[in-house]
C-alpha cells in the first residue's frame, strides 16, 4: 500500500478497523492468560490504545464502562508523573490510585509505552483489571477511609527497561489474601499490552505509518464531530432529574442537571448528597466515566468511544460531594452509585428523547464476596457478580438478570462450586419483579447461597435498591425492590460485612427493572404468555396489568379483562 499522505474516508475506515482488531487482540490475550474468573469469566476489564499525547484512540469491544472511560482519562496522570520523554523501551507503569483511575484500590491499571524499532515512542497500551484482593478489609463498604481499604500503589514503574520491579511485586504479594492470582493477573496485564504493542508495530509498518497522531487526529475529530452533531439535535435547555439510592448510613440523593447549549453538554451533579462516611463514595474520574457512557448510549451509540466523543461533554460535581469524593474518603464500593448514574441521566433525557433511553433498572451489579477458613486454617476468598433486571425499552421489554450499565458477565454456578466451598441452591427469575408496563422491565433473580466446608464464613454485602425501586418511564411502573433474607428468617441490610455460622444460607432477591408506558397498554396475550412462563403471577396480571387470566387454563378472560381495564 502506498504511503498514506491524506486520510480519505475509505483508507481511514480500513486503518480504523485494523486498530480495533489490534486492541481486541490485547483484550483476548488478557482474558486468556488471566488467573481469576473476575477477568476471564466476568470480563471486568478494559483495554485500549493511546497516542503519544495520551489520547485514547480505540478500545477493545470487551470490558466495562467504569474501566474503559476511566482509563481514557487516567493516562494523563501517568504522563504527568512520568512524562513521555522520560520513558524507555521495556518500561511498564502501574497504579491503583482511586482518584486517578477507576475509583477504588481493587483496580490495577497497567500502562505500557510502545517504541518503534528505532526507539521512537509511538503510543501507549493500557488496561485495567479488577484484582481479586488488595488486602485491607476486603471488598466491602465498611471502611472509614481509603487507608482501611487495602494497599495503595501510587503511579510507579512495574518494569524498568525490561527489568521487573521485584520489590513492588513482593510488596503487593505480601499485602493480599490471595497473592498468586493477584500477581498472576498483573503479569497477564503486562502480557496483554505486549501483545497489543507487537500488533500495533506490525500494523504501522504495513501501512507505513511513522506516527499514530494523524490517524488519531482524524478518528478523534470525526468522533468529536459526530458526537457534536448528535448533541446538537437535542433542543437547547436544562434537563434535570433526581434519583435515590439506599446509601449506607443514610439514603443518597443523586441530582443531575444537563445543560445543553449548541453542540455541547455540561453535566452537573450539584445537589447530590455529600461524601459518605463509608465506602460508597465515587471519585470524579468514575463519575465522568459513567456519565459519558450514558450520554453516548442515548445520543450516539454508534460513534466510536474515544477522546473525541468525550470532548463536547463537561462533567462537574461539587468537591467532597458523594460523586466527587476526595482523598482519603473510602471508595471501595464506588460502583454501587456509579451504576446509578446512567439511570439518573436517562431520566433527565426521557422527556426530550423518550425513544432513546431505557427505564431505570437494577443499577449496580451485585458483587458477591464470600470468604472463610479452610480446614488447614488458611483463608479462601471468592468473588463473582450477579445482576438484576434492566429497564424496559420504548420498543420492547427489559432484559432479565443482565448487567446494565456494567458490561460484566456472571460466572456459571458449576465454576463457582468447583473453585470455592460454595453451594448455590437456586438461581432463578423472581416472579413479578419486572416493573409492569406496556413493555415490562427485566426480572431480577433469586439466588440462594451457602458454604459447604463446615467453617463459619464472611459475607460482604454491596447491594442497593432495598428502599428505592427502579422507576418506570412514561407511565411504566417500578420494578420490585431487592430483598435479602437469611435462612433463620432475619432480613438483613443491603451493605456491610457479616459473619455467619457454617450452616447459614442467604437468599438474595435482586431487583427488577422499571416498565415503559402504562401496563394497561400491554397486550393481554403478552401478559398471559408471561403468566404461563411464571414470570408474572395471575394476581399481578389482574392487579397491575388489569388482565384477567383463568388460573386453570391460563388463558385471557377477554370480557373480564375489558371490564377491568375500563
Amino acid at each position: 500500500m502506498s504511503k498514506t499522505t491524506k486520510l480519505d474516508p475509505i483508507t481511514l475506515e480500513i486503518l480504523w478497523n485494523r486498530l480495533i482488531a489490534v486492541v481486541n487482540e490485547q483484550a483476548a490475550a488478557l482474558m486468556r492468560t488471566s488467573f481469576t474468573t473476575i477477568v476471564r469469566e466476568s470480563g471486568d476489564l478494559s483495554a485500549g490504545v493511546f497516542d503519544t499525547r495520551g489520547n485514547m484512540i480505540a478500545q477493545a469491544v470487551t470490558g466495562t464502562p467504569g474501566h474503559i472511560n476511566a482509563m481514557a482519562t487516567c493516562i494523563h496522570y501517568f504522563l504527568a508523573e512520568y512524562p513521555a520523554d522520560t520513558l524507555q523501551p521495556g518500561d511498564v507503569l502501574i497504579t491503583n490510585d482511586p482518584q486517578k483511575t477507576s475509583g477504588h484500590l481493587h483496580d490495577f491499571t497497567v500502562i505500557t509505552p510502545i517504541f518503534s524499532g528505532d526507539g521512537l515512542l509511538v503510543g501507549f497500551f493500557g488496561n485495567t483489571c479488577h484484582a481479586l484482593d488488595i488486602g485491607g478489609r476486603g471488598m466491602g463498604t465498611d471502611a472509614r477511609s481509603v487507608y482501611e481499604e487495602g494497599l495503595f500503589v501510587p503511579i510507579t514503574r512495574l518494569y524498568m527497561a525490561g527489568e521487573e520491579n521485584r520489590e513492588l511485586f513482593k510488596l503487593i504479594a505480601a499485602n493480599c489474601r490471595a497473592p498468586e492470582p493477584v500477581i498472576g493477573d498483573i503479569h497477564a496485564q503486562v502480557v496483554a499490552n505486549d501483545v497489543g504493542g507487537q500488533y500495533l508495530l506490525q500494523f504501522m509498518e504495513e501501512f507505513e505509518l511513522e506516527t499514530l497522531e494523524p490517524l488519531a487526529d482524524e478518528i478523534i475529530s470525526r468522533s468529536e464531530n459526530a458526537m457534536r452533531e448528535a448533541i446538537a439535535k437535542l433542543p437547547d435547555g436544562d434537563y434535570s432529574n433526581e434519583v435515590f439510592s439506599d446509601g449506607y448510613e443514610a439514603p443518597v440523593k443523586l441530582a443531575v442537571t444537563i445543560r445543553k447549549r449548541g453542540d455541547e453538554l455540561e453535566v452537573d451533579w450539584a445537589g447530590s448528597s455529600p461524601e459518605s462516611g463509608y465506602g460508597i463514595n465515587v471519585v470524579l474520574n468514575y463519575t465522568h466515566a459513567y456519565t459519558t457512557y450514558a450520554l453516548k448510549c442515548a445520543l450516539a451509540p454508534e460513534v466510536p468511544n474515544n477522546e473525541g466523543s468525550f470532548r463536547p461533554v463537561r462533567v462537574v460535581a461539587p468537591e467532597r460531594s458523594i460523586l466527587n469524593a476526595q482523598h482519603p474518603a473510602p471508595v471501595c464500593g464506588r460502583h454501587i452509585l456509579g451504576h446509578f448514574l446512567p439511570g439518573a441521566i436517562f431520566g433527565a433525557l426521557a422527556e426530550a428523547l423518550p425513544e432513546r433511553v431505557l427505564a431505570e433498572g437494577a443499577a449496580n451489579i451485585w458483587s458477591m464476596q464470600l470468604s472463610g477458613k479452610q480446614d488447614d486454617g488458611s483463608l479462601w476468598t471468592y468473588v463473582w457478580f450477579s445482576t438484576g433486571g434492566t429497564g424496559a425499552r420504548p420498543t420492547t421489554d427489559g432484559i432479565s438478570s443482565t448487567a446494565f450499565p456494567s458490561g460484566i458477565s456472571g460466572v456459571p454456578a458449576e465454576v463457582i462450586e468447583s473453585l470455592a466451598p460454595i453451594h448455590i441452591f437456586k438461581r432463578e427469575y423472581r416472579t413479578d419483579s419486572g416493573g409492569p408496563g406496556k413493555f415490562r422491565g427485566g426480572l431480577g433473580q433469586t439466588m440462594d447461597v451457602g458454604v459447604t466446608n463446615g467453617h463459619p464464613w464472611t459475607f460482604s454485602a454491596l447491594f442497593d435498591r432495598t428502599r428505592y425501586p427502579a422507576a418506570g418511564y412514561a407511565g411504566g411502573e417500578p420494578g420490585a425492590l431487592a430483598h435479602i433474607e437469611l435462612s433463620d428468617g432475619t432480613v438483613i441490610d443491603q451493605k456491610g460485612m457479616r459473619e455467619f455460622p457454617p450452616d447459614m444460607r442467604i437468599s438474595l432477591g435482586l431487583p427488577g427493572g422499571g416498565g415503559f408506558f402504562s401496563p394497561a397498554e400491554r397486550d393481554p396475550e403478552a401478559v398471559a404468555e408471561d403468566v404461563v412462563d411464571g414470570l408474572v403471577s395471575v394476581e399481578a396480571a389482574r392487579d397491575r396489568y388489569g388482565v384477567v387470566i383463568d388460573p386453570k387454563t391460563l388463558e385471557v378472560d377477554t370480557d373480564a379483562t375489558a371490564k377491568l381495564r375500563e
Partner: protein
Amino acid sequence: MSNRPVRVGVDIGGTFTDVLLFDADQRRFVIDKVLTTPDEPSLAVGDGVEAVLSAGEHEGRDVDRVIHGTTLVTNALIERRGSPTALITTRGFRDAVQMGREHRYDLYDIFLEMPEPLVRRRWRLELDERTAADGTVLKNVDPDDVAALVEELRGAGIDAVGVALLHSYRNPENEQRVGEILAEIAPEMTVSLSSSVAPEIREYERVSTTLANVYVRPVIDRYLALLSDVLREQGIEAELLIMLSSGGICTVETARSYPIRLVESGPAAGALAASRYGNELGLSDLLSFDMGGTTAKACLIDNGEPTISTEFEVSRVYRFKKGSGLPVKVPVIEMIEIGAGGGSIASIDSLGLLKVGPQSAGSDPGPVCYGRGGIQPTVTDADLLLGYLDPDFFLGGSMALDLSQTRQAIQHEVADHLGIDAIEAAWGIHKVVNENMANAARVHAVEQGKDPRAYPVFAFGGAGPVHAWGVAQILNAPEVIVPIGAGVLSTVGFLSAPLAFDFVRSLNGLLDDIDWQELQRLVLEMEDEGRQILSDAGIPEDQMIFTRVAELRYAGQGHEISVDLGPDRPSRETRADIEARFDAEYRRLFQRSAPGNPIEAVNWRVLVSGPAPTVPLELLSTVEPAASVEQAQKGTREIYLPQEKGFREVPVFDRYRLGPGMSFAGPAIIEERESTAVVNTEALIEIDRLRNLRISDN
C-alpha cells in the same frame, strides 16, 4: 470393507443439490447438479444419485459409500422448526439457559436482542436432585418425580426432552438414572442427556447444546430415514455416512443421536476439501476462504489439517454479533464467519465513513443489478460496475444484470455522500469488504498464534475468486489458489473425509492430584467407544488412529489450551511429557510461559479416526484444454485497475480451457460457470497439474 469401487458424495445447498460419484476402478468422476427440493430434500438427492449412477453406468450395489452433509440442523435451529421440546434440570436452575452469562454483548446498543432459548420457561421442568462439584451425589433421583413430569409432558404433547443436571459432566449418575426411567416409562420420547451430548463444565453452554441437540433430533431422524429409503430405492446397500462439523464422518445412527454435531457440516466439508487440495499440492498450510452471498468464512489449515474448536454459536439474532446466538459446545472446524458476502449492503455511517455489511440484501430482493427491486448497493453491484463481473455471463449467462440501475444506486447511496464518483465509490466498496474479510482472517490467525502472512489463500464460494486476490494482497499472502471444481467443492470434501469421532470426558484437577488410574479408565473407555463405531463401519483395527488431547491451563486460569498428548496414553509416567507439551504450546500462544506454576487439567479428549480416502483431484476436470493460452482466451473486457485508477481492456479466459503448465500475466479475468476469478494487477497466473489457478506476485 467391501471391494466395491464407487463412492458418492451428496451436498444439498440452497439452490442446487450436488452429487459427485467417484469410480476408483475407472478413475473417473461423474458430477450432477439438480435443483434442490426444499420441502423434501431427499427427492432431489434421489434424482441426482440416479443421474450419476446411470451416467457412470453403475448400479446401486456398486456403491461402497455415500457421504452426505446437510444444512438441515442449522436451518432447523435458525428457523425454529424443531420438535416441541422440554428440559429437565436441577431444582433452582431452570433459568440458567436463559440467563446465560448475564451479559450484554454490545456495550452501547441498549436495543440489543438476546437469543430466545429453544425451550420456553413453562417447559423447563425441575427435579429435586443434586450432585456436588466433586461428583458426590447429594440427593438421588426419585423415580416418582420423573413419572410426574412425564405425565405433564404427555398432556402437552411434548415428546423431545433434554436432561441436563448440575455437575453431570463430573458424575452423570443422576442424569443417566433419569434417562433410564424415561426409557422405561416413556419409550416414545426422544431423550438427550447433557452428559453424553456435551459433558463439559458450565451449565449455560451445556444445557443450550443439549436442548439444540434434542430439539432437532426428531427432524433429523425423519430426514435421514427418508434419505436412506431414497438410496435404497436406487439399489444402494452401503451405509449412508454423515459429515460432522469437525470434518470427520459418522454413521447415521450416531448422527441421529447427536445431530448437533452436524451443525457446520457443509462449511466443514469446504475446509476439509481445501486441506485435501493442500496435501495434494504439497502445501500443508493454507487459508481456506469461502465467500458466498451473505457471509464469508475463513479457516486456517495447518500441517494439512484444519484446527478443531469446541465452541460455536448458532443462529445469531442480532447483526451477526458474537453473543447473539445460541452457544453449542461441539467439535467444529475452527473458522471465522463474518457478514461479508456478495449481497452485503454498502452504506455511509454517522462518521461519514463507508460501511459494508453485515446487513445483506440476500437473494430477495438481492443486489440492485439483479433487477428484482433491490435499491441498496451491494458488493456484487460494485463488482459489476468495476467490470469484474460480466453482466451477460452471470451464472453462465442464465441471469442478465442491470448495469445502469446499479451505477445510479452506487452514485446515489454512496458516492454522493462521499463527494466522489460512482467508480471510486464502487472501488471503495470492493476494497472495504476485502479489508473486512482480511481483518477477520488475520484476527482468526493471530488468535491461534499464527502469522497470516505465511498462508496461501485457497478461494472458493460464489464470490471467493472475485475477491481472493485483493484479500491476499492485504494479508501479504504468498499466493492465491482457485481450485478447479470449486462448484462441487463440498462434495470433494465429503469423499475425502475419514471416518472419525470425538469423545470428551471431564476429569478436572491439578496434575498433582489427578487420579491417573481413573483417567486411564476414561481414556480407554473413549477409545473403546470409538473402536466400536469404526469397526462397525468395517475399518480394521490396524488402520484406526487414536489422537489424545488434554485441555490444560495454569491452576487458577479459566482458559484452557488444547495440548496434543502425542502417541502415549496419559499416565503418571508421561506426566513430565504432558507438562513439556503444555509449556511449548503456551509459549507459542502467549510468548511467555510461567514454569513452576501448577498445571490443571479440565477435559480429556480422544479422537478416533479411520484412514483418509484418496481422491485423485486431477481427474475433476474433464474438458479438453486448449492447445495454447491464446486459444483459451474467449474475449476481452474493460475492468478497473486500482494502480491506474481507471479502466483498461484485459483478456478474459475460459477457465475450462486452461490446461496444466499454462501461464500468463495479469491483469486478467478467468471465468467459469459459477464464479469469476479477478486479477487486477500484473500478477502471474499459472495453471498447475490439477488445473488450479495459482496467482502470485509477478
